[in-house]
């Protein structure tokens, strides 16, 4: 699959995060994604089962665990992959989601407030741990789950 194939989906074109979602499917520098890669990304959204007998502490965590789901969302914010959501990155996302009629100053204040609500180590950016903490009250397991093929 190439990027153009994704862009042909009409609803995705009007989704504010459309481009970022598409980019998440493609690995670094590649322009094609095969079925395996496609599945890996969608596997993040499998519902979490309570009775996973295969919960092997030594093995890698399953892709649809809570922390991996949050990590996926985090990567969509963090474009330069420095493991922090900086003020600029937050501003970009806000601008995409909030619309055209808000002034830059207001948007800046909203971004500032968000960072200050979440920031605990004072670096003026949201790290992954801080992101997890903000989302601790949100029911991520149920929100980020889609029942494919049932």
């Amino acid at each position, binding site marked *: 699959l190439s990027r153009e194939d994704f862009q042909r989906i009409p609803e*995705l074109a009007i989704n504010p995060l459309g481009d970022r979602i598409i980019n998440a499917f493609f690995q670094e520098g590649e322009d094609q994604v095969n079925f395996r890669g496609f599945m890996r990304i969608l596997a993040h959204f499998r519902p979490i089962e309570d009775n996973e007998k295969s919960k092997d502490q030594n093995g890698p965590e399953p892709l649809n665990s809570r922390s991996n789901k949050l990590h996926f969302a985090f990567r969509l914010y963090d474009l330069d992959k420095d493991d922090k959501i900086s003020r600029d990155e937050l501003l970009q996302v806000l601008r995409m989601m909030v619309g055209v009629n808000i002034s830059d100053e207001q948007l800046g204040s909203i971004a500032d407030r968000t960072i200050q609500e979440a920031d605990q180590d004072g670096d003026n950016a949201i790290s992954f741990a801080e992101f997890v903490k*903000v989302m601790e009250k949100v029911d991520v397991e149920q929100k*980020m789950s*889609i029942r494919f093929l049932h």
Partner: protein
Amino acid sequence: LDYQHVQVPFEITLWIMLASLAKIGFHLYNKLPSVVPESCLLIFVGLIMGGIIYGLNDKSPPVMDSDIFFLYLLPPIVLDAGYFMPSRPFFENIGTILLYAVVGTIWNVFGIGFSLYGICQVKAFRLQDVSLLHNLLFGSLIAAVDPVAVLAVFEEIHVNEKLHILVFGESLLNDAVTVVLYKLFRSFCEMPAIKSVDVFAGVGKFFVVGLGGVLVGLTFGMTAAFTTRFTKDIRVIEPLFVFLYSYLSYLTAEMFHLSGIMAIVACAMGMKRYVEANISLKSHTTVKYFMKMWSSVSETLIFIFLGVSTIGENHEWNWPYICFTLIFCLIWRALGVLVLTFFVNRFHVNTITSKDQFIIAYGGLRGAICFSLVFLLPDFHRKKLFIAATTVVILFTVFVQGMTIRPLVDLLAVKRKRESAPTVGEQIHIRFLDHLLAGIEDISGHWGQYYWKDKLEYFNSKYLQKILLREYDQPKSSIVLLYEKLERKHAIELAEAGQLGHTPSHPSLLNNDRTVITDKKLEDTLNLDVLENIQEILARNLYRIRRTGPAYNRHTLPGETEPMGRAKEILILRHKGL
């Protein structure tokens, strides 16, 4: 002494006064409301009043007139419920709610009706003359869960949001089913012969009643939103429109024999978003206060009348029938919940745990709607038996189940409501996830809830907002609105707290950008003097109160409880960061 002249309004006012004084009385003694829910106390007061009247006059006290109940007492409560319904959890769980409301109620009605008919066949109880149709009619009015009772009990126990919305949504939406079945069976009672065509007509009628009610409600809701678009110069009567249109939708639906409750709920939910954007802040507060006040008064009156009406000579006590009614109500509800939850859990990611199921089954309280419906029954020789049975069931559910549900919730450690402040960050991330999920659903071709929500949002922004909102050139996202609301509250609270005169402990330079922005938003709510004060205070003061609150509490308005959490730390961090 011209008593006749003022009798009717005088008596009404006296009743309302009695109800309000009783409420004050309960809350004076602190421990009482936590053990006994208010509804029980009110019924108790009603019982005492009824006893007094009976003793004095030696005749039955005034029975609550069904018309008064349905036309005057019920709409404010349902309006309040619909207006403050948190729409997000409601629509996320709408499938489950509809399933419980429709299928669950039908299951209960037929289950109770048939099993009571079975009991009537037993010769020892001398009940043969109660026909199947009568039993089904009785079943239809006793099976429905009552929104008033549920609201009164559940709002004090603070269970988690999903559970609350499930029980509450079900109690609101089962009105359509109840209305149809009740009217259906009643007309069957009067018809000489029943053909299968009539049964099918009944089923079709259910859809008409339910969907028709919703349509009527939505029409009135949209009209209300449209009207408020033009009220910029007459702010004073803005709140009136909200109430007028909602009440009209209720009455119109009742006129056409559609479901009035569904109409008023649909009206309130539909118009809320647009009306709140159009009306001024003061009108908004007025609407909130009036709604809470009216629904509070209504609920109190209903329970007191319930108590008063039980005393008297309206009852025929046939103990086996009554006991079995009670037992069957409980059993069929539990069975219904179990079976339906089994189906729901297979299709949904949100599983409903068995603890939740127990609370849902246990929270099936009957209340004043059953009571009024039973008085509306046509007079036949067994009517008093039904009245007695209904009274016992209502008293049992409200007293026993109402009182024990709180300890049970504690005992079973049911997940409680999370008390937390709405933060801007959370809102942003939640919205982010919404978009993300909508995108993933588009990619995978799955028509899930995000897909429909996205479509609705798109429709909303393209068409509805243009027509219904006054300042279309500034459609504000809810993130921005929440941010503005929090900042405004913050500034006002600082202004109030500043009157205590805290000395500056951190002489930081105020961030000039922030002043500019808060200025813009505060302009229309505060005058210049206060504005200057606020600028100084924002520079000096570290004291801040953050407000949160549950959205659907009867006694407090949204935004009045005050935890002083991490507010101070955040403010310190903020000053450091500037």
